[in-house]
């Protein structure tokens, strides 16, 4: 009943319906295998422990903390995301379900569904890693609202910038390494922005206007629109 309601093509099958159907299907698959979640979270936790163990919460001078901690946090977030986000498309290629997916939904809907799924993964990653990082490193944040907004918009940007690359590398050889190589130059502007934004939130100076959050939102919107334009070209090959 539930499944039929989402996947039905006879009634009004909108882009959003199809995208949600793909999102739910991916979530269900992920709950069964837990492959992407395990890969990303274990990578993140391992890195976090390594960083926390080797630096600790007293090694860095108080004045340096806002900047250096925000660098460390974003390095952990970006590289754990890069370790598992390509999974959403690679698994279709490996399971041989790519062709069925091409037949059963419009390309933009597939992209949106995969994007929702990646954003869900990133949300889970951030919910677990960011509070643990703050606790383990004793990270004092003067402006929690800006910090939260920066983490959320930065996460959206990460998902928006990497999803179309995942679709490309799923059809290439040497997938794992290639995903990071291709995504990183695209993500760098976002990463620099997010680091700056988190630093600003932590030291609580010049927080008016939230320029970094706005840049991250603009980046996300532009990447999603460009991906919606370009995705059908790489999907229907």
């Amino acid at each position, binding site marked *: 009943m539930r499944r039929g309601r989402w996947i039905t093509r006879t009634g009004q099958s909108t882009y959003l319906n199809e995208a949600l159907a793909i999102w739910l299907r991916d979530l269900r698959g992920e709950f069964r295998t837990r492959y992407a979640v395990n890969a990303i979270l274990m990578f993140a936790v391992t890195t976090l422990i390594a960083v926390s163990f080797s630096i600790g919460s007293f090694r860095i001078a108080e004045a340096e903390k806002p900047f250096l901690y925000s660098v460390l946090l974003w390095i952990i977030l970006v590289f754990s995301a890069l370790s598992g986000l390509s999974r959403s498309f690679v698994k279709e290629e490996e399971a041989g379900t790519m062709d069925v997916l091409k037949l059963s939904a419009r390309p933009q809907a597939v992209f949106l569904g995969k994007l929702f799924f990646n954003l869900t993964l990133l949300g889970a990653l951030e919910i677990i890693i960011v509070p643990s990082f703050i606790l383990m490193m004793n990270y004092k944040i003067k402006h929690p609202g800006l910090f939260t907004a920066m983490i959320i918009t930065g996460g959206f940007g990460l998902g928006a910038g990497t999803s*179309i*690359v995942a679709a*490309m*590398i799923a*059809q*290439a*050889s*040497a997938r794992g390494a*290639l995903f990071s*190589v*291709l995504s*990183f*130059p*695209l993500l*760098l*502007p*976002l990463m*620099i*922005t997010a680091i*700056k934004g988190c630093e600003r939130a932590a030291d609580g100076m010049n927080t008016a206007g939230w*320029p970094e959050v706005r*840049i991250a939102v603009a*980046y996300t919107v*532009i*990447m999603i629109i*460009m*991906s919606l334009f*370009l995705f059908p*070209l*790489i999907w229907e*090959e």
Partner: protein
Amino acid sequence: MIVKVLLTLWMTAMIVAAFLYAGAAAGFPGQTSRILFFHVPQAWVATLSFLLSMVASCMYLARRRVRVDYVALSAAELGLLFCILATATGSIFAKATWGSFWNWDPRQTSIVILLMIYGAYFALRSAVPDPEKRRVFAAVYSILAFVTVPFLVFVVPRITASLHPEDTMNPANPGMDPKTLKVFLGSLFAYTGLFVWMLRLKIRLLRLEGRQEPEFIITEKLRQEGEKR
């Protein structure tokens, strides 16, 4: 052939003029300002080829002509070459004036990201086995990378102030010495000419290589058989 000879003569004249005709600009230690005649045209050509590669990629996605993809690939390869040249000369200048070869000036940051984009572009091209797919993916990636460039231009300079000379050496600035301006524009022209000449060579080379590909040989055979009938 004529183009090659003219280009050689013009390039030689510009190199001689850069050292003998134009004077050293004031405000720069020693003769360092002469880098203007080499570094800036290189950076200009690197930008131009990046733009050309992106435009050709768009055209390829619209029309699916292999020749257009040759333009995109050749422009990207030459762009990488000029990008490396600009990075190297820029960092020699940085050593002479700022005291270190590398200090993450915003200009250096953006050129490193440009180098990384080129690197990723070639990595992608070498990783997709199917030629048609390879061209489409490369074109898509090139457009995506181009979209992020405005962020670099507007975002990175916000983070730290740049030491890169702008006003003292800007040709639009009336303060520039007329002799310097002449040589600079001549050099810009020479480098652009060099780029166009190399680009045409590279495209011809790719076209010849393309004839060895099984895809081409098969379509060519079919065409000849069709003519026989």
